């Protein structure tokens, strides 16, 4: 087998059976935005806007570096944005403007 051949066998998240570290029994209560993100995923699925398979493929499509460095719900929301762009439901410009607006609002009305 040459060096590149093995790369064709697995996507970044296809890790079943690979060697890995010891189990760390970590748990955390979700941050409010993480719970909202989870609820958003469910609602997107209910409305057939983004289903579970599309979400998983959207996370895979982020590539190994983002999959490795973003946290679980950071990957989800980034994947949702990309999928919504691909489907023509949102545009990157529209999202950037809305994010600026949300950011500005939170600065003028801190929690």
């Amino acid at each position, binding site marked *: 087998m040459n060096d590149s051949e093995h790369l064709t066998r697995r996507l970044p998240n296809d890790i*079943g059976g690979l060697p890995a570290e010891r189990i760390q029994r970590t748990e955390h209560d979700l*941050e409010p935005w993480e719970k*909202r993100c989870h609820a*958003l995923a469910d609602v997107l699925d209910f409305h057939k*806007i983004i289903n579970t398979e599309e979400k998983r493929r959207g996370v895979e499509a982020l590539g190994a570096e983002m999959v490795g460095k973003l946290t679980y719900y*950071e990957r989800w*929301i*980034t994947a949702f944005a990309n999928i919504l762009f691909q489907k023509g439901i949102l545009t990157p410009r529209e999202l950037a403007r809305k994010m600026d607006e949300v950011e500005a609002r*939170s600065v003028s009305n801190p*929690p």
Partner: protein
Amino acid sequence: MNQGRHDPHDHPHDDRHSEISQSAHPGYFDVMETAVRELLVEKRLIGPGEIRRQIEVLDSRTPALGSKVVARAWVDPGFRARLLANGRSACEELGISFYDDTQLIVLENTDKVHNLIVCTLCSCYPRPVLGLPPDWYKLKPYRARAVSEPRAVLAEFGTVIPADVEILVSDSTAMVRYLVLPKRPEGTREYTEEQLAGLVTRDAMIGVAVIDVETSGVPQ
């Protein structure tokens, strides 16, 4: 962006958030979530109250629902048979609604077989009956190793399964989720259904633990 989180070593799925303080203004991804949601509401693709309602649904799902299912299966052989035949419809019999379109397969532990569930690709989990999965279920070590060295993984949870008991690992998918029906522990003949439900833990329904009356702390 995303201040306060540092991931210096190769620990890709470790979701640590304790360093984020309440007073800090929202992080980049928090803002992104709000922006995506508000745009979808403005475009009338989702309703303004839907996220709030779904959060309430998520909050209503805890392992206590799964415990109720397991205890009923232990005391009612007819229910047990229906549960093993069709997990979803048997749970619905107990009033547990499935808010998604997933199927549920219930795997019964016996003297010969111990079941373990995993999602190697991501984090599929029987959420309608157990709530959201613990972090370790979503992290690489569990997902990678549960299918190749389940006994070593179980030992790291303090669970030792006798060598003559087969370990069956079931890998969940987007549409098919699993729930382990643990063995009813010895010495519980006199227990009420409610007392039995009190013995059942989330980890036993994932398969990383067994139920032990001695250590459960439930008074006899």
